[in-house]
């Protein structure tokens, strides 16, 4: 596509090719705009670098439009402005995202060490330095594990129903509500379990209550991804198996599922990565606990996202607590990113076999 718009330039432009800006012109305008932006920023005494960047971006777009209109005409000028707007929007979006990662890593490594990973907050007040996240890691692993145990069978079976059996109104309704369920705010899932499990049935706060809310969030994700994977299994495989007289349920268990197991694993891992960072339902249902509690069915627990929130919220702005919050955030992000990368690795590794 780029060949079509950037035509090769001869030194002597004939009547067929219109005047063109040289290829380096966007860079020149960009450098000019940044310089002018910094100059204006300095001159006007603006403290925030973000403002400098914004001024430079606006100048760049205006400059491109003006120069291109003069040399190349209006249509080309619009094209160049669109190009620069797209580039600017991309850069604008990258800045906060890069900053987020950078801040988390640079502030998180301060207190992150083996001690931090292997101790709880049992004897440490929230404003004091010291303490760690062992109890939170245990809580997260148990709650997410339980949620996975609940949601994977339900999710898999629902997806199998939709792909292998589902015809008619019931299947349509299930498809629609799975879609809608994907969008349920996590806090509403938490409130549901709160009203049903704690307020009406009278159980107390526990990791298990949290896992139930998490599985409400996880099931639709598992259904969606498994469904996509099952649809990719070639029909010839099913027909060959059925033609040999194998019952349908054995065909599904022995032929369809093994063929798509890579993709299903990926989907489940991505779903785990999604719920591992959920705070709101944990806040409502697991309550938080500075001590180590490894029994998810009895008494309040903690979890990594909840730990971050409580270190931020309850410490009255003590730097030690903020450091712990950043370090816990770093651990959480690392955990989720590793899950993501492994999941995608599995998808890539398994892909050629089914996609032949």
């Amino acid at each position, binding site marked *: *596509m780029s060949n079509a718009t950037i035509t090769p330039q001869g030194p002597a432009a004939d009547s067929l090719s219109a005047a063109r800006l040289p290829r380096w012109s966007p860079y020149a305008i960009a450098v000019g705009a940044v310089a002018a932006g910094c100059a204006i920023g300095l001159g006007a005494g603006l403290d925030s670098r973000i403002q400098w960047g914004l001024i430079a971006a606006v100048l760049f777009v205006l400059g491109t439009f003006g120069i291109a209109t003069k040399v190349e005409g209006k*249509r080309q000028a619009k094209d160049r402005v*669109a190009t620069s707007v797209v580039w600017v929007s991309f850069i604008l979006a990258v800045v906060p995202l890069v900053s987020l990662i950078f801040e988390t890593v640079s502030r998180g490594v301060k207190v992150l060490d083996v001690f931090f990973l292997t101790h709880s907050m049992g004897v440490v007040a929230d404003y004091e330095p010291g303490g760690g996240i062992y109890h939170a890691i245990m809580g997260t692993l148990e709650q997410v594990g339980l949620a996975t145990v609940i949601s994977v069978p339900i999710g898999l079976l629902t997806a199998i129903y939709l792909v292998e059996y589902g015809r008619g109104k019931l299947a349509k309704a299930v498809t629609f509500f799975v879609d809608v369920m994907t969008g349920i*705010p996590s806090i509403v899932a938490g409130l549901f379990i709160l009203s049903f499990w704690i307020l009406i049935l009278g159980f107390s706060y526990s990791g298990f209550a949290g896992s139930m809310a998490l599985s409400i969030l996880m099931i639709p994700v598992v259904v969606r991804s498994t469904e996509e994977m099952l649809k990719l299994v070639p029909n010839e495989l099913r027909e060959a198996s059925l033609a040999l007289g194998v019952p*349908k349920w054995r065909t599904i268990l022995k032929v369809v599922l093994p063929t798509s197991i890579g993709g299903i694993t990926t989907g489940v891992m991505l779903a785990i990565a999604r719920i591992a*960072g959920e705070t709101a339902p944990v806040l409502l249902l697991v309550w938080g606990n500075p001590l180590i509690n490894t029994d998810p069915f009895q008494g309040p627990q903690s979890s990594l996202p909840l730990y971050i929130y409580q270190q931020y919220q309850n410490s009255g702005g003590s730097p030690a607590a903020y450091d712990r919050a950043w370090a816990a955030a770093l651990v959480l992000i690392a955990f989720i990113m590793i899950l993501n990368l492994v999941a995608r690795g599995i998808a890539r590794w398994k892909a050629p076999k089914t996609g032949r």
Partner: protein
Amino acid sequence: MDISTKTTAPPAPAEPPAAPLKTTRGATRPGDRIFLGLSRGSGILLLVIMAAIAAFLTYRASLVLSKNDGNFLTTFEWNANNTPPVFGIAVLAFGTVVSSVIAMVIAVPIAVGIALFITHYAPKKIGGAIAYVVDLLAAVPSIVYGLWGALFLVPHLTGFYSWLNDYFGWTHVLEWQGGAPRTLLAVGILLAIMILPIITNVSREVFRQAPLMHQEAALALGATRWEVIRMAVIPFGRSGVISASMLGLGRALGETMAVATVLSPSFEINASLLDPGGGTFAQNIAAKFSEATEQGRDALIASGLVLFVITLVVNGAARAIIARRKEYSGANA
């Protein structure tokens, strides 16, 4: 099944083979019946869960709504622990809508820009890498965005706020009294950053499917790249972008932790986005929960029910648009 009837009997008699097939299917093996029962049962279980969410939230909400001394829709107060309780969602609804609208106004154009950048502007390899990074960013948990927002974004916003106040203060909407910038505008900006990845991902998929023939035809007629996008890509992707935006909106409406860490709530409505005023449904639940009595919790559940209905409508609409588009393009293909 369809294939076998087609190949064996091209003319009319498709019924004779169909009848015996049905009878054998009727007398299925027990394993099949159990398996079908299990899988259909879990499908039904999902419907039951959805119904139960609505039912239980409504039940608990009804317990407290009858006792409410204020008007649930118009009271500017949240004293749900008192006897009698006085609470209303006016401020929460205002804050939720305003912060989500700010987020949409910022995020949608930028997300469309990034999606176009990935599909039509960036070199192929770079585009793929960026798409991958955007995918990963969608997985960053909201509490981390919240922490970043409260400890990094908010301190960096004071300059921006005073700039807005200097140049646009006369509108009253962007007037600033000089407090900490933990207001609806800051929340809107943070939400915009959070919903960027999801809007980008869905729009990117739609733009990628834009028919190549149309684009090449436009290029052959001498269109510039921007004209190709305007004539051949955006018309094709419009409904996709709309539904992507609504998915993002659904997420922004229900976002809890990022708002709870950044916003300093106040139970009044302020014309200015830069001064404290307003809360959101989810933020209010998270903030008020720990000191709420059972009655207070029911009141929070009532506000959660409103949030549930709103997100249900928004998401349902988004899905309906996607589904219609699918049928349309399927007929086209």
